[in-house]
């Protein structure tokens, strides 16, 4: 770490309601991943506070945070963060292991999550035996396997061709319709179009926070998405 203090985020104030579908955009280095880490209870702000379900995260202890990360949040990392020595199935099983799901049920859940992202025939491959897009899909399957109420995805389609990318986005749309909160970091406008709300960061500040263009022009139509009201 250098001697200069870097403020990855400053003066960010936002409120995301339950069941919202939010896209976060901004140039590289603008603080998107940093914001995701805060929202995912991995990091705590050096200043200011973050309330999750009306609870100040700073007051929670390590175990409680671990439990929230395990049960409430599905995190798709920008760099996947898969265990290199474990195969796809075991990687997807991991959250279930830490939440104590018994082996048989766990296997079944992990298999079906992998099948959802089209990887049923790659279950026993290790990350280094998978393509970039396949790794991304394993990461997505792992994030979704525990049925989290909040899905945080950092560039989830960055390594996917447009067709697989669309499939993943359709999956997110489906989850959104079921009432899950979805926050997606992206730099592609087409991806952001799936979200109801778009937040644009620049140098650690919120530059724009607005309803998606589709909802401004025609709030009731748009690809079968029926977003809940903003809190």
């Amino acid at each position, binding site marked *: 770490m250098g001697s200069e203090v870097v403020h990855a985020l400053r003066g960010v104030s936002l409120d995301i309601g339950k069941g919202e579908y939010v896209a976060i955009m901004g140039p590289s280095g603008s603080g998107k991943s940093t914001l995701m*880490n805060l929202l*995912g209870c*991995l*990091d705590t702000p050096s200043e200011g506070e973050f309330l999750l379900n009306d609870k100040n995260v700073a007051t929670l202890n*390590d*175990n409680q945070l*671990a*439990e929230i*990360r*395990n*049960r409430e949040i599905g*995190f798709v*990392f920008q760099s996947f*963060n*898969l*265990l290199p*020595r474990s195969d796809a199935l075991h990687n997807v099983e*991991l*959250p*279930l*292991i*830490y*939440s*104590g*799901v*018994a*082996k048989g049920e*766990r296997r079944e859940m992990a298999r079906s999550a992998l099948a959802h992202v089209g990887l049923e025939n790659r279950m026993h491959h290790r990350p280094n035996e998978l393509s970039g897009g396949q790794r991304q899909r394993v990461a997505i399957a*792992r994030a979704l396997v525990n049925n989290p109420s909040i899905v945080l995805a950092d560039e989830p389609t960055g390594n996917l061709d447009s067709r697989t990318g669309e499939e993943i986005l359709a999956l997110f749309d489906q989850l959104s319709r079921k009432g899950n909160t979805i926050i997606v970091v992206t730099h592609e406008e087409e991806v952001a179009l799936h979200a109801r709300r778009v937040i644009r960061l620049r140098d650690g500040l919120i530059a724009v926070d607005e309803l998606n263009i589709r909802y401004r022009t025609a709030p009731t139509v748009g690809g079968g998405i029926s977003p809940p009201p903003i809190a």
Partner: protein
Amino acid sequence: MITTSELRETFLIAVAALRANVLRSGLTTLGVVIGIVTVTLMGTAINGLNNAFQKSIATLGSDTLFIQRFAWFSNDDWRVVRNRRPMTMQNARDVERMATLAAAVSVESNFGGTVTYDKKKARGVWIMGNTDRSIDVRGLSIAKGRWFSPAEISSARNVCVLGNYLAERFFPNQSPLGHRVKVNEIQYEVVGVIDKMGTFFTGFNMDNQIVIPVTRFEGDFQERPDYQIIVKVKDVTRLDDAEEELRGIMRKLRRIEPGLPDDFAINRQEAFLNFFRAVGGTIAAVGLFITSLSLFVGGIGIMNIMFVSVAERTKEIGIRKAIGAKRRSILLQFLVEAALITLFAGILGILVAWPLTLVINQFMAAQMSWWLVAIALLVSVLTGVIAGFIPAWRASNLDPVEALRAE
């Protein structure tokens, strides 16, 4: 609570980590291996010593007092005690007559000599002079024939009783009874054979003996034999009283002025017991010192390797924590890894120690016992847990974001 699925995962990770680093882990376990080898060898040796001792001590008898010129295992100044007068036969007769707390009194003398039969010759045989009462006092049993009669003792007949080993050696396919063997060119007729007695814990073969009437000693072998008077007491709980009585009798018989020290010693089994305790204690102290030193050094090595392991897997720790692993899961993961390394070291140590105990077994009946194996394994696992604690603690307290950033 840690669930079973998590426990399973913990073991799988630890085993995978070990398999990935067999050589590295193997080298660092050397200290622990040495520690376990010493602790098992020490335990086996003490155990063997104990067994041998228990058996030998029985031949001395806990209810027996030995009146002799010198005290066993004493620090008496040799220049002072070497001129003590020998015990005489008359002393023994008087003790037998006067001691009220004695059940039986025997007079003995012995030396090492050569025994021959026909053309067979046995050197270094334990030649004992006994009385008719010695069979009771010494607690012997007869395998063949009989013991001496009082008449044979008082008339100093040329009869003998053979130790089992000597009998086998001279008379492999026939009964020795009635044959004559020679001790220092004097012939003795064999009237009995003693049951097998075994080896004294000093390594002395007690079956390589021949017993003759003690009354023959003076004429046949020595000018003034050094007799010892052995007293079996009536009541073992009054051993101290019996000793005091004997002391009084002996002082009177030997005309020792009040205030002057005894010129004899009354020994008992306890002296051996104390000596044995001292030997066992020394072995234990030295063994424990080497053990703890090597376990300490080994533990430092394990701690080091665990630090390396934690550093190498920082990213993995970050991933696990990000996904919901709690501190205790990470802590347990690394503790199990360290404990498994030292457990293997312990098993290796036992495998190394095993053939060495067989070597010890050549000298005394010593076997590696199951409880010793269990203790050794427990100690090795404990070493791993203690040595691995700080690295594991550090791993469990890593910040997830920081850890994820590691390569």
